[in-house]
Structures are given as structure tokens and as C-alpha cells.
């Protein structure tokens, strides 16, 4: 591991509770994600994959260990600095889209910029919405969009501030397979064309097969870290691990 990566964690442990009832959601996890690559994190329920993502994104703090994001040591930041870091360098995509129902698609996409009080780069915005393919839906409210369209708006929102890394939490969990495919293609495109770094937590073998790299967690430890597999390979791997 000579490349420190755009996001890296060293010896992360996250413990819930104290004394005899203490549970380690993560124990001694070290991992680094390379710039402009698409990584998938998998693992059974309770394996610690969501906890890992929350800590990497600065949403939760580890019991011990360090996280470095785009060269910044997260442990040294207070809440306000963490907030500013998220604002400028992190994008999020959620399972349940999480668009504000009161804003239309365009306003939802621009929300991170308006929170920051930053101005819109018109050329980048045009390029982005063409890539996402929702130009004709810009003035629709979320309720008027399909699930796939909503998630594509959410992807655009994650990309609009050109963050150092985009974290996607089960981005296809609420979508049918066609819509899932579109969203995953879009993430792939973000990595390939825009040089975006994407870290995705998923249950879905099909989704994982779109990534460059597959990290698998089990019982709070990394049990596999390597090249991505096709969907069949992922399924076989998961079966072998659960045995």
C-alpha cells in the first residue's frame, strides 16, 4: 500500500457499549481508496460496512484509529470543520434518495452549492445534467419523478460540487433492475469521464460488479480486498464467505 489514497483509514475500531456488553462494529480495519476509482464495499448485515462508510465520511467517529480524507486528518476536526469538509469535499447518495420534496430537481441538485453560498459553474452544470439525462425534468418536483429519475437527480447533487469522494449508501436498494442499471452506469461514467472517486456500500451483487474493486467485510474485519468480479463471481464469493 504505497499509494495513500484519497480516503484512507488506519487501524479503525468502533466499539458500541462498554465493559462486558461491548460490541465491536469494526475492529482494526485499515483500508485506502484510490483516486478516480470505483470501489464497492459488501458484507452481510451487521458486518460493519455502514459503520465503516459513516466513519470514512466523517459522520461518525471511531473509538480508535485514524481517517484521512483528501489529506486531512478527520480526528483533528471539530464539528464545524467536519461540516465544512463534507460541504466541500464529500458527496452523498442515499438508498432513499432524500430529495427535499419542496424543491424542484434543479434546486435539489444545486442545494449543496446554495448551502455553501457558492456560485454555479454553468458549463459544469450543463455537462452534468446532460450526463445524468434529466434536462427535461429540471423543474419537476421529486413527487413527479420516477424512482430512477430521483436517484439520478441525487447523483447529480452528489457530483455538482466536484467533491474529492462520493459515498453511495445502497444506491440501488430502492430501484428496479432497469433503473439500477442506469444509476450504476452513471456512477461508472462519473469515475471514467469526470475522474470522480466513488465508494459504494451495497448488498447487490449486480451493483458490485460495476466497481473496479471489491472490499468485503465480515464481523467488523476486512475478509477480502481485491479486483472486482462479475455478478456471478460476487455471488459465489459471498456464498463461500457465509459458509
Amino acid at each position, binding site marked *: 500500500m504505497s499509494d495513500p489514497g484519497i480516503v484512507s483509514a488506519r487501524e479503525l475500531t468502533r466499539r458500541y457499549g462498554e465493559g462486558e456488553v461491548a460490541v465491536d462494529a469494526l475492529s482494526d480495519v485499515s483500508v485506502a481508496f484510490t483516486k478516480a476509482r470505483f470501489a464497492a464495499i459488501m458484507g452481510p448485515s451487521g458486518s460493519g460496512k*455502514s459503520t465503516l462508510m*459513516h466513519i470514512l465520511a466523517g*459522520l*461518525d467517529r471511531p473509538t480508535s484509529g485514524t481517517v484521512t480524507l483528501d489529506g486531512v486528518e478527520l480526528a483533528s476536526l471539530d*464539528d*464545524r470543520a467536519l*461540516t*465544512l469538509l*463534507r*460541504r*466541500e469535499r*464529500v458527496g*452523498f447518495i*442515499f438508498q*432513499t434518495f*432524500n430529495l*427535499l*420534496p*419542496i*424543491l424542484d430537481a434543479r*434546486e435539489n441538485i444545486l*442545494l*449543496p452549492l*446554495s*448551502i*455553501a*453560498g457558492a456560485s454555479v459553474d454553468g458549463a459544469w452544470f450543463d455537462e452534468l445534467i446532460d450526463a445524468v439525462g434529466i434536462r427535461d425534468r429540471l423543474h419537476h418536483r421529486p413527487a413527479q419523478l420516477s424512482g430512477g429519475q430521483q436517484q439520478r437527480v441525487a447523483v447529480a*447533487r452528489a457530483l455538482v460540487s466536484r467533491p474529492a469522494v462520493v459515498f453511495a*449508501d445502497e444506491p440501488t436498494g430502492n430501484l428496479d433492475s432497469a433503473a439500477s442499471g442506469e444509476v450504476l452506469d452513471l456512477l461508472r461514467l462519473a469515475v471514467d469521464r469526470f475522474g470522480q472517486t466513488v465508494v459504494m456500500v451495497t448488498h447487490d451483487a449486480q451493483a458490485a460488479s460495476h466497481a473496479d474493486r471489491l472490499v468485503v467485510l465480515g464481523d467488523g474485519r476486512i475478509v477480502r480486498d481485491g479486483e472486482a468480479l462479475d455478478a456471478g463471481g460476487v455471488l459465489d464469493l459471498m456464498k463461500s464467505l457465509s459458509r
Partner: protein
Amino acid sequence: MTAVVVRGFFSRKLRAVLTGIAVALGVALMSGTYILTDTIDHSFAAIFATGEQNRAVVITPHQGLGAGAAVQTAAIGQATLERVRRVPGVAVAAGEVFAVATLFDAQGRRLNTSAPSFAVSVLPARFEDLSAVAGSLPTNAGSVAIDQASAQRASLRVGQRLRVAGATAAATYRISGILRFAGSASFGGAGVALVTLPQAQLLAGEPNSYDDLVVGAKSGVSPATLRKRIRAVLPLTLDVRTGVQQAAQQTSDLESQLGFLRTFLLIFAYVALFVGAFIIFNTFSITVAQRTREFGLLRTLGATRGQVVRSVVAEGAMLGFGGALVGLLAGLGLAPALDQLFKAFGADLPDSGTVVEFRTIWVSLLAGTGVTVLAGLLPALRAARVTPIAAMREGVPLERAQRSPRGRRIILAVVAFYVVVRVALLASSGAGIATIVILLALILAIRVPASRRRIGGAFSATVVALAHLLARPLAWRGITGRLARDNTVRHPGRTAVTAASLMVGLALVSLISILAAGTKASINQAIDASFAGNLIIQNSSTAGNAGIPTEIPAALRAIPGVAQVTPVAFTEGSVNHLKGNQTITALDPASFARVYRIDWDRGSDATLAALGTTGTVLNRSFASAHHLKVGQTLTVAAASGRRIRLVVRGIATDNARLLADLTITLALARSAFAQRVDALDFVSYRPGVTNAQVQPKVNRILAARFPQAESQTATQFKNSLASQVDTLLALIYVLLALSVIVSLFGIVNTLVLSIFERTRELGMLRAIGTSRRQIRQMIRYESVITALIGGLLGIALGVVVALILAATALSGSGFVLVIPVVTVIVLFILAGLAGLAAAAWPARRAARVDILAAIATE
């Protein structure tokens, strides 16, 4: 971010409207109060300014006790007028009489029952500002001119008869003209009978005397110069002002009297705003909880805590400003309604036009916006504690801040302190204690959602226990009743705050009703204990401190069967420079003790007989409050500024408060305090004489010569006092009703919000076969349970505060604590009905929930 706030605000229109109303109602009462009092103020100011414009200098008796003092001032004698006429530069000087009077038509009916009337003398043409719109001003002893408003009310025309009774026997005049004042039909609501100067002096009982002198300057002499010259030759018991100064003085006197009315009404506006604050707090708390994921998302996307707080506060500010604006406009409509309300309760306040001062606008907007922002602050701070993770998954609870809420406590303490100080300043000490107790209870309530563990836990537990208790009768309704109860206790904090808003209003209503019942009982007990006579004579109108003529006792003593007639008068003075004025009772020492049993602490009836013009008897509560003892000498300043020294000769307990702070002889009151009319006459009969033999004769004499007076037996007197208490009580009820209405909007709001929250659950209930009817019932029961909790707590709180008051502030005053059981039960039932009414619309809304859509809601 601004877009989020603005859109969010408008996307929750219904909530905004319901919460806005809560603010608007309180603000409406506030702005209505200002508009009404400003309008009255300006109406009078216009009259005063017109009245004084032709007068270079005005001379009035000095009144050193403040505009609010109920005292007569000394009349100005003829010699003073002659002295003024000799001052160089005086062109004309004339005396004017302006005396409280009562007007009757030819059939003996009073023209004006709710406002005072005056007998006024005609001035020389140079000064006269009254003009006749019909007929002419009176020129001979037999004629009178009356104000247009009174004439219209009684359908009187020129040529008809008018009876006028002042400080002496009544006289009858022929109407020669109808008057207008500075463009208005009445003298600010009061009736005016304009007669010739000698007639006015006769009616006022002041031959060769005047209430004020008006002076016209020779050309080339300025009012200021003339004032200086006249000032130099007159004693300090007279005030000398230029016409302009006089108008300003009259206006400022009026303002200080209106200040009482304004404060009285503003207290109710504050109460309504306070109740509104609860509703705002509750609404914001609920919506913040419902928007957890939204705040989490904003935080994830990089919004700082500050930005989240500001977005909620901005929403509160918009809401408050909108509500306040609506309230301000509603105040325009409310001001005349308040005026009508006072008319209905017997106080005719004059107003012409509508005066909206800039102060009314900014105070209303600031109060409405400020209350909303403050009440929304705690929920806003809670919104900031939402962690970004809350956006990730459903059901992540709000982080309970460990580094506990010092900031919140400080804010709460500051707000509470401000309110306490503010209200305590407004109200008297007794009411102040009540306010503090109510506030403590409220702080307890408001802390519920904040910390369930400590005191709040106890309050929540009380709410839960009450809900179970009150829902017991619903058991037979089966599952609907069960669900209603469980929904009530699902968020005990929310139910507690909703109930608390109703509790405030009901606590005040029950407290006031207990105090009123107690006051009536105390009056009855005190009169029964002290009054040993048979009849009480007093003016039939309480408006304008109208007294009764001093000739009445002599006239009544001539009636066979009458043993004693003893007059009593009231005045005020300033004792030993104590704060404010002290009330003084003046009585006839020879006869008083025969019709009134005095409960002596020190002294005896003999003390009274020997009082003379140098002694005084103190009321025990006054004596003990200021540590005054028998034998001490007091310095008492009369309104004229004259000081007399009185030795304390005795101390008496008098729960009827007929014996005021000080008691002196009538002779002293007449000589040193310029007291020329009496307040009451007590009449006692000879043994063996029945009321039927005497009272009709008394009434005949009164009707023939003193129509302004009426006789009452002790029972009639008690009833008339009770009805005065009831009138005030009804007025306060009406004003408090506004707060109760505000809290009903709170119940509606809470119901609507929790129904919204439970859309899925309601859909599920409908899906498994609950009928719309059952859903409606469930919501109604929920509302009724909440309302009854508020009612029960409010009534309990009112009773507790009354008990505390009776044991502290009112102890030793002879206050009889009476719990008006029927009123209390009615209040409780009304609270339940109010809950039912509040549920009507939310229940329909809940029943309309579309099953499929509800279940599909993500």
C-alpha cells in the same frame, strides 16, 4: 438555503395558518387596545385644544395627588376672581363651573347611565367654544342647553323639560339649545347640561365660587407674560397655566387615567400571546421531529448547525411577522368591538375616528414576531442537534445532547425572568404572586419535552396518569377508546404542552371565579357583621365618582320612624410621604357608631366621638403594613397641597373596608380636604318600625328632591355590590376567552400534525376494517382527553393559587375563600366540549385518509 426556508414555509401552509392565528389573536388584542386608547386620547385632546384656544390663561385649584386620585378640589372664591381682574394686561376674566351632575328627562328617567354627566356654566362669548346646532345657549335662569348625543339618545328637543341634579337638590329647566363640542356630538361620551353661571353655582352647591377661572389678555400682552404676572399674585394652592399648557395638562391627566385601562387590556393580550407561545413551541417541536431526515440531509450536504438553526428561526420570524401583521389589521376591527364590549358592561368610552400610532404598529409587529421567534428557539436548537446520520436510515432518534442544555437553561431563565418582571410590574402584589406560581407550573410543563428524566418526568407521568383516568369512561367504546388514550400518551410531552396552553387560560378563569366568589362572600359577611342600620343611600350611578348632596340627612331625619341618618364621605391624601395616595373615610363621629359596628383593636366608640379635627383612626391592615401605633403623629397632605397633622387615636379592623386607611371626621374633611358631597348615608329605624313603613317615604323624598340618589336595604346593597363584581367578572371572562380560543387552535394544530405523522397507521387501521366513523371518534376522544387534562390541571392550578393567595396576600383582609363548585364543574365540562369542537375538523381529515396512498407512503 433561503429557498429552502421560503419553500418550506409555504409548503406547510396549513400549519403556518393555524400557528399564525395563535399569534394573530394575541397581537390583535394588543393593537386593538392601543388603537382604542389612542383614539379616546385623541378625541379628548381635540376637545381640550379647542376648548383652551381662546383662553390666554387658565387658573385651576392645585391637585397634588395625581390625576387618578378620587378627590374634590377646593372651589375658587369671588375674591380671587376680583384679584385676577386687577392684574395689568387682563382684558377679561371669568369664572367657570364644571360640576358632576345627573340629567333626567321629564319622566324622571336618567339620560346617561354609563358615563358621567356635568353641569357647566355659560362663559362670556369671548371664551365660549360651545355652539348650538339647534336653538340657542341659555340666557336666563330657567333654560339649559344639552349635548347632541344625550339629546338624541333621549329624543329631547328644544322646548322640552330637563331635570338636573348636582351636589344639591335637583332643578328643572327648559331646553333652549342643543350643543356640539369641537365637531363632536358629546363631550367625549359624557352628558353636558349648560346653564347660566348662577344656576351652575347653585347646582354645584358653590355660591359665589368657581371651579376654574379663564382670562383673556389685552392686545399686545402674550399669554406667557400674563401667566407670569398672575402667578405672582396668587397663592400656590392655585395653578396658573396658559391655555396651551392647560390643554396639555388635561391631555396628560387623561392619558395617565387611560393608562390603567390600557394596562388592564394589555394583560389579557400578554396572556393570549403567552398561550400562543406554547402553541408555537409545540408546533415547531413536532415539525422539527418530523423533519429529522430533512435536517440530517442538510447537515450531510454540509449545512452547519448554525445554518439549520437559522433556517428554523427564519421560518419562525416569517410566521410571527405574518401572524403579527394579520393581528395588527384585526386590531383595527377589534378596537371598536372592545369599545362596544365596554359599553355593554356599562362604561361608555368616547371615540371618534380611528387613530393608529406608529408605536402601535411597531410594538405589535415586534411582540408577535418576538414571541414566535423566542418560542421557536428551543425547537430550532434541537433541530441543530440532528446528526447527519439521521438522513441515512429511518428511525434514528434525535441525539440527546449530553453536554446538557446550559444555553437553553439560560434562555429559558431570561425569558421567564423577563415575563415575571413584566407581569409583576403590571399587576398588583397579589396578582404578582399568582403570576409567579402559574409561571413556575408552566416552566415545569415546558421542560417536559426537554428532559423526561427529572421534574419533567413527573409532569409527563401526571399527564399519562390523567389520560388513563379520564379515558376510563371510554372503556366501553372498546378499541377506539383504547387507541385514543394510547395516542394521547404516545408523546406525553406533546400532550402536556398542548394541555398546558389550555391550562393557562382555565387556571386564570378558575382563579378569577374563585376570587370573585370569595369577594362576594367577604362583602356579604363584612356587611352582615358591621352594618347595624336599615337603609343605605347612594348615587344610583357609579360613573365619575358622583356623590350625593349633603342635604339628604336633614331631609330624611324628618321622616317618622327614622332614628339616625349618618353621612359618610371618601377622599384621599398623602400620608408621611408614603408611596401613592392613602384612602380616607370621613364620617360623623356622633352618629356613626350607632349604625355601624366597629371592631376595635385599640380604642372604642368613645375614641371616635372624641376624634375632633386632630385625630384619626387607622385601619389595622394599613397600620400594621406601615408599623403605625396609637399616639403617633401623621402628616397628611390634601390635594390642595395643604398639610395637616393628625394623631393616631385608635386602630380598627374593618373587612368591609368602609373604614379606609385613615378615618377622620366629616368636619375635617370639609374644611381641610374640600369634601363637599357625601358618598353614602346610613339610615337606621326606630325600634318596632318596619321597612315597609319607612323606605317608600324615603324613596318619595329622594325622587322629589334628590333623584340622583337611591335607597337600598342591606340585602339590596349586597346584591348591587355582587352584581358589580359579576359585571367585572363577565368582562374578564370575555377577555380571557381569547386565550382559551388560542389554545383551542393549539389542540387543532397538534391533532392535525400528529394525524399527518400517523397517515400510514391510519391507513392500516382503515385497511383492516376500521370505519371512518371509528377513526373520527378516535380523534375526538383523543382531543377530549387532552382538553380535559388541560381543564383539570388548569382548575387545580387555579384553586391552588387561590389557596396560596388566601393564605398570603389576602390573609388578614377578611377574605372568605369560597370554591364555586358549580362554576368549576361547568368549566370542566366546557373544556371537554371545547376539545370536541377542536377535533371536528382534524377528525374529518383523519377519516378521509386514502388507504392505499397511506400504506404506500414512503
